[in-house]
């Protein structure tokens, strides 16, 4: 089953006629994802990779009975695209677009909360439940169905670690990219909760990075909830100096807050093993799952 997306996911692609949208629609279709419609204003009536294109989400949802959306719309219009999806009843929205203004993202998240929808991203590689549904831009061959739930703030680093797991025959239930922006739909705790009630997931790989305190809060949650599944963490940015923004808008150490040490310490206190380098994640998980 995995979490959030699975074989019953019927997705529309917003911005399907753009270069990115079109390219990844093809890859998602090849992976077996049910892409049931696309939306690009002004391109209604055409087809992309045999997927019918509509001018509005309203029409697309009506014709396709979609329940999810993946958004490739340029940043100035992406928040509006997400609201269009939400207002038309879509409950899972993956926002690939990066560089969405903070004010716009806040507005989207508030409305999503009000209508009870799940937002993955923005600035995320997306989400994949291997063998069932890929709603994202990740290279699919590095994933394999299995028992490890993955959740990460990073894109390529996730691929790095997922590929390591797959090489060791540790498949994944679902891999979720939270997104690198300061305002994203899901945090670690949200995803830990999803994995908690997912039968397929037997262990969790959590890939954090410097900045903010979401990792610390996740560690606290693991303690408080007496989290029933083993968790292995990796934190990127041990060598990062304070006050510098390391690519991601959120990856910045402010004074003493947001350091890798603080996060690693919090996890260790919660009994979560922390990998020293990316390849160690698979090594640690292998031990935990075999036991």
């Amino acid at each position, binding site marked *: 089953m995995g979490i959030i997306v699975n074989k019953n996911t019927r997705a529309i692609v917003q911005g399907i006629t753009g270069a990115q949208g079109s390219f990844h629609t093809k890859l998602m279709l090849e992976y077996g994802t049910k892409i049931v419609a696309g939306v690009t204003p002004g391109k209604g009536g055409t087809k992309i990779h045999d997927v019918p294109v509509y001018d509005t989400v309203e029409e697309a949802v009506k014709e396709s009975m979609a329940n999810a959306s993946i958004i490739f719309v340029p940043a100035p219009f992406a928040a509006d695209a997400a609201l269009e999806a939400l207002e038309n009843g879509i409950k899972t929205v993956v926002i690939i677009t990066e560089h969405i203004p903070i004010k716009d993202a806040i507005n989207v998240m508030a409305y999503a909360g009000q209508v009870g929808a799940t937002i993955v991203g923005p600035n995320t590689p997306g989400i994949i439940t291997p063998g069932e549904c890929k709603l994202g831009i990740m290279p699919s061959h590095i994933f394999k169905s299995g028992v490890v739930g993955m959740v990460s703030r990073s894109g390529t*680093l996730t691929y790095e670690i997922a590929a390591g797991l797959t090489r060791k025959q540790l498949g994944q239930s679902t891999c979720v990219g939270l997104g690198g922006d300061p*305002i994203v739909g899901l945090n670690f705790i949200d995803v830990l909760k999803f994995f908690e009630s997912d039968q397929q997931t037997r262990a969790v790989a959590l890939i954090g990075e410097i900045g903010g305190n979401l990792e610390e809060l996740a560690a606290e949650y693991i303690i408080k909830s007496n989290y029933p599944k083993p968790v292995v963490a990796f934190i990127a940015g041990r060598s990062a100096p304070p006050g510098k923004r390391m690519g991601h808008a959120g990856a910045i150490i402010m004074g003493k807050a947001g350091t890798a040490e603080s996060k690693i310490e919090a996890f260790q206190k919660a009994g979560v093993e922390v990998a020293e380098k990316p390849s160690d994640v698979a090594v640690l998980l292998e031990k935990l799952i075999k036991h």
Partner: protein
Amino acid sequence: MKLLEYEAKKILIKYGIPTPKGGFATSAIQAREIASSLKPPFAVKAQVPVAGRGKAGGILLVNSVDEVEKAAEKLLNMQIKGIPVRSLWIEEKINVKKELYFGITVDRLNKSYVVIASSEGGMEIETVAAKTPEKVIRFPINPRLGFRAYHARQIAKKIGYSGNQISTLGNIFYSLYLAGMECDAELIEMNPIVETQEGNFIAVDARIIIDDNALFRHSEYKGRIVEGELSPQEIEAVKNDLAYVKLDGNIGVIGNGAGLVMATLDAIQLYGGKPANFLDIGGGAPSDKMATAIKIVLSDPNVEALFINILGGITRCDEVAKGLLEAREKLGINKPFVIRLVGTNEEEGKRILTEAGIHVLDSMEEAAQRVTEIIKSKR
């Protein structure tokens, strides 16, 4: 985008927030002229986009026009936290009864903005929070309602005011919120906002950081680069939409994806090396972007070796390989380098590089080890 104090104050004034009378100067003579139209004593303030400027000696308090000229001369020949002072703001010094803090920033966990206020201002709010957390009020803004005049009054009350001062101060807080929203600030703060002996409130210092992602809505800042704020590499990176951060080591690093690059830096450090920079080429970079990235990294004289770490997702390995060869041809890369290349179009990328006589590695950790060994062997 960090605004300078005088730019931030212009915005505050537009929103009706009282600030001290003052003027902008880029020379000591100009500073003198401005001061002669103001009432002493004066504050002469270096315009540099860094926090903690006061502690670093960037603000001089003087009593006469002559002294303003001297202070200006001194500041304009200074660097503050590595940034040369190019301009000044000269203003009337305010008669302080009490210094307060008020700011609005982003609250990641609550996915909204948060107001931070304190009856202790004038120093960095992090310092206040560490020393006397009970004096710092955190007020998350409900995105459904926004921050309203009555919220502002609640906060004015909580930091100790009563009577008419509640509304006076509340209106200033509320105006600052409107200013922040209007200009897409990810941080807007008055530190300090001062209560005068007469019971009025004046924003004596202001700081605004505009959300870079919202700059398309603010054409007034188009092309604005504050001289001296960025290194030549950083300016070049900004122009080419690359994320570059200068570090203090000697191994140049290029990778795709912020997390991966950070992990690459960590791996270098783990094996005893020191990265010279962070450079993320982002997703799906074409070959010329890769070439530009190499050029930027190599333009840093501290770089003694280069580590390129690519895990192709949207990014295609063949494009990376072409970019590398392009850069080698044009720039004549004369530093040793290590490349790790896996993912989308991996075979084609490897073929291109192997044919050009370049050895490609599969593991980032192996590559990190290799590059640190190269540096060590050069000693």
